[in-house]
């Protein structure tokens, strides 16, 4: 049965790693729903958060192939209920249309959205939440004619009590110390 899985991979911060990771999906004809790459809390280590919709079997294989990459330290996968996750969405709406509405305040308030910028021509509204939530606000705002809409990839934090990577790194540090070529 296909469902949503969030893959997190921790890697060295090296040129080309994004490509190395994505070709693992491409080769197996797995579509990436969202992808976010950023520095992790640990210096020099980057974190990839990748959402796919597939079977458990497929996600397990993909994760072991990611972890096999020389420059990847660890890769994990989680179902949606094992993580706390968010996406951010920005909406650009004509200011005039908003001014003419009498439910705008309620909409913003109910959706926990906020206004980032207002000009005579347009207003930029921001909302964080799950995809369904940012989508719901889109449907409402689109009645006023959304001129631009953008949504980020998912970021996620695990619910587990053990910090997987930190304990892994401690083990590694104990065992050895040499780093792979540093590109920084």
């Amino acid at each position, binding site marked *: 049965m296909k469902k949503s899985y969030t893959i997190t991979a921790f*890697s*060295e911060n090296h*040129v*080309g790693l994004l*490509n*190395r990771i994505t*070709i693992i999906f491409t*080769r197996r004809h797995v579509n990436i729903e969202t992808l976010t790459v950023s520095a992790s809390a640990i210096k020099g280590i980057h974190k990839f958060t990748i959402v796919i919709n597939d079977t458990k079997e497929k996600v*397990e*294989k993909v994760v*072991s*192939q990611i*972890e*096999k990459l*020389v*420059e*990847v*330290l660890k890769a994990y996968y989680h179902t949606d209920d094992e993580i706390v996750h968010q996406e951010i969405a920005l909406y650009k709406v004509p200011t005039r249309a908003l001014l003419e509405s009498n439910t705008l305040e309620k909409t913003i308030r109910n959706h926990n959205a906020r206004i980032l910028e207002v000009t005579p021509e347009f207003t930029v509204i921001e909302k964080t939440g799950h995809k369904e939530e940012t989508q719901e606000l889109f449907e409402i705002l689109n009645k006023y004619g959304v001129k631009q809409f953008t949504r980020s990839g998912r970021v996620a934090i695990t619910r587990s009590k053990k910090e997987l990577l930190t304990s892994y790194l401690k083990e*590694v*540090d104990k*065992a*050895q*110390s*040499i*780093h*792979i*070529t540093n590109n920084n």
Partner: protein
Amino acid sequence: MKEQTSITDIEKKDKMTKITGSEALMLSLLQEGVEVIFGYPGGAIMPVYDALMNHEDKIRHILTRHEQGAIHAAQGYARVTGKVGVCMTTSGPGATNLITGVADAMVDSTPIVCLTGQVTSPLLGSDAFQETDVIGITMPVTKWNYLVTQADEIPEVIAQAFYIARTGRPGPVVIDLAKNAQFGELNFKYKKCTSIRSYVARPEIEADKIKEAAKLINKAKKPYVLFGQGVILGRAEKEFRAFIEKSGIPAAWTILGKSALPTDHPLNVGMLGMHGNYGTNIKSNECDVMIAIGMRFDDRVTGDLSKYAKQAKVIHLELDPAEINKIVKADVAVLGDVKESLPMLTEKIERKTHESWIKEFKDCDKIEYEKVINKALYPDKPGLTMGEVVRIITEKTNGEAIVVTDVGQQQMFASRYVKLNHTRSFVTSGGLGTMGFGLPAAHGAKIGAPDKVVIGIIGDGGFQMTIQELATINQTQAAVKLVLLNNTYLGMVRQWQQLFFNKRYSATKLKNPDFIKVAEGFGIKGRKITERSTLENGIEEMLNYDGPFLLEVEIEKEANVFPMVPAGASVSDVMFSSD
């Protein structure tokens, strides 16, 4: 004043000790024990070739006639020596010509370091002359790759390249060297790489798993070992033998595992897979415990997965975590180096024999012998068979030779019928099935094992894919023995057309050149055999000849390889003939 002088001194000393990136590359290769490079020069690698001249006494360069020839030779060299094979080419077409070999080395876990020239860094991405995105192109088919843009990166990157290529599950590494890094200067200091924090070369073995595996093995009535190249790559041939000899378990091999156990070993029950033995295949679906050691359940081994070994508990001893449960779900997965895990397991298992179970294999062998083997090795019809050629080669070399094959029917006949006594004596393109592999790989194998008899068994199709390497052989005069089995067809494809495409022989008939004349033109002595009566004499002449030799044998045109598990069929459904 005094202080100033000392700074100038340091600067002077620094200048004196600075060397170029190309020179540093050579010194790094020497530190890694490199003795041979197979390569082909060109614009973007010229500084390195220039530095190479300073070290000709220690590093031998073999100039191939095509970069594909270079990498296949490096593969042959690596497979017989256990060392890292090294090849070197220029940028652009030089590098792209390596790709087939890189992909081959990746799927067959061969340790290779490819050094490719690259345009100078400021020109990267500018579509400069002979610029190709080599890192991008090789990414899916390398274990690791790296673009060097500064000279001072070279020692550390080369140390890592060799470490990554040879440790863990070995594989190819491509190091792309921008020309400015080859020219640039650095203070050379070399430190061998012994670990990389993001890379686990040897996973720790879990004692619990050994216990679980031993328990299953001790209870088993029909245990069955399937072994692959992992035994050879892990240098665990001795440990493997100790394990099967104590447990008394019959053992069958994948094509790449062939030489890990002497062919004549009483527990060696033969070859697995599409053209493997009858017993080894059908017993996969009859054993109660299957012990897979350093093998990856290739689809040519398993046939239809939904009908494969469903009755068996599966124990999988494997170094690469990504291979566990990839194809066949393991009931007990023993992750780790078989060199360590096998002795742990041997200690925990009971000494046993499985006579009646082994007899079941022998009974299958009798059936196979009557239906297929006897006809293949001792034909009573006029046409020469690949089987009889392989049989006579084995008889004349007493299992002491290194045999290298190309891909296709000759590969299957060689795999099935060559007898071998020693490890690392069978070199073939397994996972990728690369036609054109045999000729250069045989040459590389002979370079790596000059004291051994090295025989390349090659078909007329594959021979013509890398035929230019005859010139390389003429230049090195390596005494490699090439046996060309010529049936004027792309035999394996033709066999499938006969069996599965109503004998519609689409694009498989070859109009061949006069191979002996071609060889002569390349300066290689040759002889053509067309009659059974001269075959033995021809093989003797080839083996006794002091130098490289081409023996062409005219083979019956439309012969087939049997037994056969057709693609997508169960390993229980073995075909013995086309009828």
